[in-house]
């Protein structure tokens, strides 16, 4: 084996990790707040608003992310009239698809988290003169996040792996560069390197979530 070549190719694949990490960060940072908005909209008092939101969540969660990605990147530009305005860069299309897709999953997680908060908490906040927004921000959300965090951690790990899907629309991320190197050098080993990079990222991520979970576990006794 040509170690120099393997080393250089590994460095090249790592530049793709930059794209992967960018997509990951953009998705996490935007889909969490968006997902929370989705949760609130899905609980709206106005029937049609609620139905539309739940419909979107239903469709997004019920269809493959890969299909959605292809739809956004290849499909939207063919739409009559507005298609031209929906032509996006590969990376932008990936971000848009991932953010909306993950927001829908997070919306479901947050919904469950909200249900887990005792009704008495809303009442206590109310009799203490807190407004609805204050109650949400200071009483309900912190408790919801604690319930939701393990599930959010799971989704984050899945997200790291899902980023590989953007390979299909030609984004030069880890898998794209790996596949190119494997074909060029006829060397399977690069797949192992790619796998290790994903594993390292997920190990760091899992560890970070464990730390945060431990930090906000306010129900530990003694």
């Amino acid at each position, binding site marked *: 084996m040509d170690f120099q070549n393997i080393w250089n190719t590994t460095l090249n694949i790592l530049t793709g990790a930059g794209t992967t990490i960018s997509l990951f960060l953009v998705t996490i940072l935007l889909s969490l707040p968006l997902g929370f908005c989705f949760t609130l909209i899905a609980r709206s008092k106005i029937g049609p608003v609620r139905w539309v939101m739940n419909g979107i969540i239903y469709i997004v969660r019920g269809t493959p992310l890969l299909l959605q990605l292809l739809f956004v990147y290849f499909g939207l530009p063919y739409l009559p009239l507005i298609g031209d305005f929906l032509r996006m860069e590969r990376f932008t299309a990936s971000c848009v698809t991932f953010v909306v897709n993950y927001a829908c999953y997070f919306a479901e997680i947050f919904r469950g988290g909200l249900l887990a908060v005792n009704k008495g*908490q809303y009442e*206590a906040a109310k*009799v*203490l003169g807190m407004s609805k927004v*204050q109650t949400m921000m200071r009483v309900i959300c912190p*408790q919801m996040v604690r319930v939701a965090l393990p599930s959010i951690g799971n989704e984050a790990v899945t997200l790291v792996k899902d980023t590989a899907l953007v390979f299909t629309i030609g984004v030069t991320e880890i898998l794209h560069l790996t596949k190119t190197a494997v074909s060029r050098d006829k060397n399977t080993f690069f797949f192992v390197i790619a796998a290790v990079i994903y594993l390292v990222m997920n190990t760091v991520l899992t560890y970070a979530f464990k730390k945060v979970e431990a930090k*906000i576990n306010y129900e530990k006794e003694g």
Partner: protein
Amino acid sequence: MPFISVKNLQKSYGALDVLKDVSFDVEKGDVIAVIGSSGSGKSTMLRCLIGLEQIGGGTVSVDGDDMIRDGKYSSKEQVKSITAKMGMVFQNFNLFPHLTVRKNLEMPYRLMHREVDEAQTHALCDSLLQKVGMLPKADAMPAQLSGGQQQRVAIARAMMLSPEIMLFDEPTSALDPELTGEVLGVIRQLAKEHMTMIVVTHEMSFARDVATRVLFMDDGLILEEGSPEEIFQQPKNQRTREFLSNFIAP
């Protein structure tokens, strides 16, 4: 003029009339014990007063201001300013589990009194925790406390907003007998300081010893009302006698 005046209060859930026609007055310094079997409407009545339940009909006025007149609510601002005069303590404490004891007291207070600085807030918080005997646990999380301790913190938290009247909704029903005493002790202390209170309770000896007046509720109505002596020694109503016969006189 009574401090709180409740006239013909009505409340129903669908076809179920929980409160049929409830009228009573509360004077400043009164300690009113509301007794009666479960489902008689005691808690609902309390929750209607502080705006946790929508009232169906009747008139409630506090300190001369109408909260609701003949089934019509006053403006949101007025209702809010009226309910702000009341503090409430729940059966299940409802402390905020993600905040320390101190933050449970200080967070709502700071939201309401943004002009007060931190040192003053601390001092007020300390004095109230001291009063309920919970100052040593100021930095504990609610989950680290016993039920009785949590309820004492909940009382201090309500007191933090200087209510003119305290509503207690079965404050000891979730506690085992050993812990009941410490919570009742705190409420007794408040009574001595002439805090106006309405206490929904199943603790008959507490009602007899501490209350200035006792209301006996049954099936959405106040069947009998009087001094503890009148209610416990010479109940006039047959239903009151039946209810009280279930409690062995100590």
